[in-house]
């Protein structure tokens, strides 16, 4: 803890004075979010690791909450005068003469668990050590298939140091590593050309990038690209789909996850408003949002309000049981925080956000699920999704998949959008496989102009009807 105070160049006494200033106009609560973040990116293009990017970001966000209203400011200069000025700006949300209650910081007595154990921190790895990773992937990609004409690789590692202090005396810290690798491949066959990407990400150290990972991501990028040459566009319209295990979890993120973020329900704008306790799916459907999955991209030891994270059930045995909370919403609903208060950086206020969202394994085998479909689509990889919180319409874009004909995977399909309605699709989940996979791709969730790293997962799942884009 002391290391973090020293790192940010502040003392408990200065922090207390800043919080006192922030609450001088009668706010109920204040927190200070100190953050240092270093991001390094290496890029391979045209067979050469020939550009890099390095970003250093440093500052403190000062938030005042008055009932359910938020005043916020930040400063990039951690000096007493700059912080006091920002605190005064944030204080303006309150306008009463309520007396400020004195407090002292009490460091956490319980040990904060470490959900991202790593061996080699990113600040100890220089460019020279990372370059072979990119060159080895590039060589592997070109050696796998003569049709490859371009390979483009982006390698990004980030580490953040965070210190959170609040007017209730809480003082907590976190160290967050994050890495992501993106391999984009273009292949040419006769007169047609196709591109696709493969990604890996997680809260790992450099040791994660072993030979197997390099081999697997190279093979995946090539396979996903050259398969597209044989891909067809399916007939459009309503049909059965089978979602492959892993990245298909994007369906949960869009169909239910956002709608259960408690800020939308507090404002009555989500279609899940007032639906807790209702049956929303078959009894073999359970969905969680989990901040504790070891080394996962969306895991957090503490959220950005300093609360411990947990495995939060959203749907348990088909019943809607929880919303995802930040401080304001947990107080509104009179429940404990779930550790979902997240923000992009110290320049933003926290709101309820997902972490790693997945469906638990169910009673069916993947084989029997595919076999049960006479005509439909098997969706395998995805690029993006979106949802309308009120209407519940959500979409996700299928980059690759297969036609299912008479219970068998047949021709590959590509580039189709799937659109459905969250609650209807949940009801239409008719089979759940026993093969949950949490995806290790680079997923970033956007909300209110803030991006945060997340992941999602799914076992093999059958949805009895959904609208598939096609021709």
């Amino acid at each position, binding site marked *: 803890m002391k290391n973090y105070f020293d790192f940010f160049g502040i003392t408990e006494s200065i922090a207390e004075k800043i919080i006192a200033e922030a609450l001088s106009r009668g706010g109920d609560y204040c927190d200070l979010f100190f953050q240092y973040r270093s991001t390094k990116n290496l890029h391979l293009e045209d067979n050469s690791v020939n550009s890099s990017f390095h970003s250093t970001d440093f500052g403190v966000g000062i938030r005042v909450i008055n009932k359910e209203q938020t*005043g916020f400011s930040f400063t990039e200069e951690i000096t007493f005068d700059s912080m006091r000025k920002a605190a005064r700006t944030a204080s303006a949300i309150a306008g009463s003469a309520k007396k400020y209650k004195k407090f002292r910081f009490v460091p956490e007595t319980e040990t904060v668990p470490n959900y991202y154990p790593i061996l080699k921190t990113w600040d100890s790895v220089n460019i020279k050590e990372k370059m072979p990773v990119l060159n080895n992937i590039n060589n592997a990609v070109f050696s796998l298939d003569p049709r490859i004409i371009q390979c483009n690789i982006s390698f990004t590692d980030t580490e953040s140091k965070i210190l959170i202090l609040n007017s209730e005396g809480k003082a907590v810290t976190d160290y967050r590593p994050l890495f992501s690798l993106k391999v984009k491949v273009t292949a040419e066959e006769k007169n047609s050309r196709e591109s696709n990407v493969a990604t890996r990400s997680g809260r790992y150290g450099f040791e994660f990038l072993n030979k197997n990972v390099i081999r697997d991501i190279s093979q995946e990028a090539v396979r996903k690209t050259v398969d597209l040459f044989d891909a067809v566009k399916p007939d459009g319209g309503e049909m059965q789909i089978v979602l492959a295990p892993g990245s298909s979890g994007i369906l949960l993120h869009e169909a239910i996850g956002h709608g259960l973020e408690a800020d939308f329900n507090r404002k009555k704008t989500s279609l899940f408003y007032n639906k807790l306790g209702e049956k929303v799916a078959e009894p073999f459907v359970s969905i969680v949002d989990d901040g504790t999955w070891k080394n996962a991209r969306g895991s957090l030891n503490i959220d950005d309000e300093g609360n411990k994270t947990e495995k939060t059930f959203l749907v348990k045995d088909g019943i809607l049981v929880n919303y995802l909370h930040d401080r304001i919403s947990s107080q509104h609903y009179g429940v404990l925080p779930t550790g979902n208060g997240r923000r992009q950086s110290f320049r933003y206020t926290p709101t309820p956000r997902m972490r790693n969202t997945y469906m638990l394994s169910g009673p069916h085998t993947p084989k029997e699920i595919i076999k049960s479909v006479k005509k439909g689509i098997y969706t395998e990889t995805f690029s993006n999704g979106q949802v309308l919180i009120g209407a519940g*319409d959500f979409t996700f874009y299928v980059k690759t998949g297969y036609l299912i004909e008479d219970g068998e995977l047949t021709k590959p399909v590509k580039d189709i959008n799937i659109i459905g309605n969250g609650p209807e699709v949940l009801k239409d989940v008719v089979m759940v496989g026993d093969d949950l996979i949490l995806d290790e791709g680079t997923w970033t969730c956007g909300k209110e102009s803030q991006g945060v790293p997340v992941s999602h997962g799914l076992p093999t799942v059958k949805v009895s009807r959904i609208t598939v884009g096609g021709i």
Partner: protein
Amino acid sequence: MDFKHRYTLAEWIMDYAISSGADEVAVDLVRAEELDIEFCDNKIDKLEQGIQNLLYLEIYQNNRYSVHKSNLLDKHHLRNFIHGALNSTRYLEKDLFRTLPDNKLYPKQDTYDLQLYDDSFNNLKDTDKIMLASDIEKASLSLSDKIISSTSSYSEGCFHLIKMQSNGFKGEKHSTSYTIGAEVTASDKSNNLCEDSYYAHTRFFNDLPASEKVGKEAADRCLRKIGQDKIRSGIYTTVVENSEASNLLGMILSAMKGSSLFLRSSFLEGKKGKRIASEKLTILDDPYLSKGLRTNYFDSEGCATQKRMMIDKGILNEYYIDTYYAKKLKMKPTNGERTNILLNYGNSSCNELLAKTKKGIFITEFIGGNFNSTTGDFSFGIAGFLFEKGEIVKPVNEMNITGNALTLWNNLIEVGNDPFSYSSVQTPTLVFKDVFFSGD
């Protein structure tokens, strides 16, 4: 830090990097002062304010290239930062194409005021800004008791860029921006919800539309969706609302970039001088548009911008090629990025085009979806209205449109007279024939 100090600091960073071993450098010093007010339930929900200072430093050293960003701008930190930047650059592989642009491409001098900075920025009262957001919410809620929530907002920003490049470029850009709008949610008798929003974005405060108009527009967009449902899959003529049509144009604009061409992932490769759209499509890139949201005398490389006819009556005239990819592709550089996009506008309003088209689907919203830049294949989620005899019949949602960008743009049959001015891509209402919609 005032302008004079930042200007002196940018010069010092450039000189220090050169004297420490860089062959060439580019320095961008950015200052952004922003305020956001969100208003909901007749009170401020969030008030956020902050000032950012960012340095972007590009290092060119022995044909090696790297970019570095920091928000710590004291000289003690910057000395270590610059040495670290130079040190890490030496590990990279050489790239003979990486140099600053030829300084003949830099602008001679700013010739006239492009109307990007609103002098009233510092004189506006906070109470007036809050009142504006409050009035928008009131206007939304007044339209119908079916509206259950309206979150209105006011945002403003003042931005200053100082740009210097060691082979002779020094420039600056001072601009302001304002955004007002609302997100509205309504409920029908069965408690089914629908939502929509409306935002206006301008360079000058006085150009913002009246708060009442914005609030009512957001509410009206939401209310007209009540009862929406999907309809039968099929091939329809589609009228695309002006504010949404830029989503479709985005497919063409992104495939025109030099990086996409070099990476062989552009469906427009080899199409220069050829027809890529119907003759109704003419695209002008205008960097000098007064008060434009992407107006500038110089691009991100410091090169002088130029008005360009990108597509002339359906024929692709130009790509967006920066100086780096120009060398790699052995092509002439244009500018590496788009500025303000204007079309050759027609004579009919949106309502006239609906009447003329008679029957089809009027798209008023795109929801997700994506497109494949290498092949031009696309599939997008949509919402809008079925119209017959030129009149709206019913709201539709939960449908996809799917096809190929070249086919779609060759099927453009009408261009409206109503460019959406609150965007840098000022598309009017557009009409396309033979678009595949999937629904039921």
